[in-house]
């Protein structure tokens, strides 16, 4: 294939990886709501 096809593929892969990283980080950053001292009644 022509060289520029590889370049486009590489860019697409990079964009997808970046999008995944952002999605994963946003999920990680979601806050929790934590209840303490209530283990079992």
């Amino acid at each position, binding site marked *: 294939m022509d060289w520029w096809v590889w370049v486009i593929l590489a860019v697409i892969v990079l964009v997808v990886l970046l999008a995944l990283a952002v999605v994963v980080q946003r999920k990680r950053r979601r*806050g*929790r*709501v934590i209840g303490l001292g*209530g283990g079992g009644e």
Partner: protein
Amino acid sequence: MIPPSETSAILLRARELAGRPVVTLGGELEAEIKDVVFQSDGGRIAGFTLRNEGLFSRARKDALPWHAVHGVGRDAVMIRDAGQLVPAEEIAPKQAARKGNVLDDRVLTDSGRELGTVIDVVLQGGAGLGVVGYEIEASAALGTAGRRVFIPLPDTVAVSGENLIVPASAAEFVSEDLSGFGAAVDEFRTRLREGRDEGAQN
């Protein structure tokens, strides 16, 4: 100092606080809110864990105890200065915190009926900030399967592993929106009190 009791008696969703800026009275951005931490016994907010701003930042090793909160507003949580932060272990001990997240937990009545899963937690200001209810994705048992509704909680939030136990009567005080929910909480808690008083008289 405005005591936290002046966070108005409005209701707010705990998850809305995640990411809210923590700002000193000197006008400096100290951190962002990460987790909301409450005491199961009494439902009172113990404090907040913190993270730095920015998409790729980690959790901070310090945390904000409730008594250091100057005010909780629409756009920021105000503190007098950063000197009042404490080690995160004091607010959210690691072991307890890992298991204590109520989001996505199943809500069961004490008679074994599943009401739904927790999407959010409803807080109410007053004398301090406290947990008064859950926003849940309702199960079929509530007759509103898949819908988001609010159920009120008593003073004590019972947790057992991944299940949260509520009194069976809570199902009678389900609200569809937040604006009417405050009244539902009051009525529900009055009902519980009456039940307790009756029991004490017998």
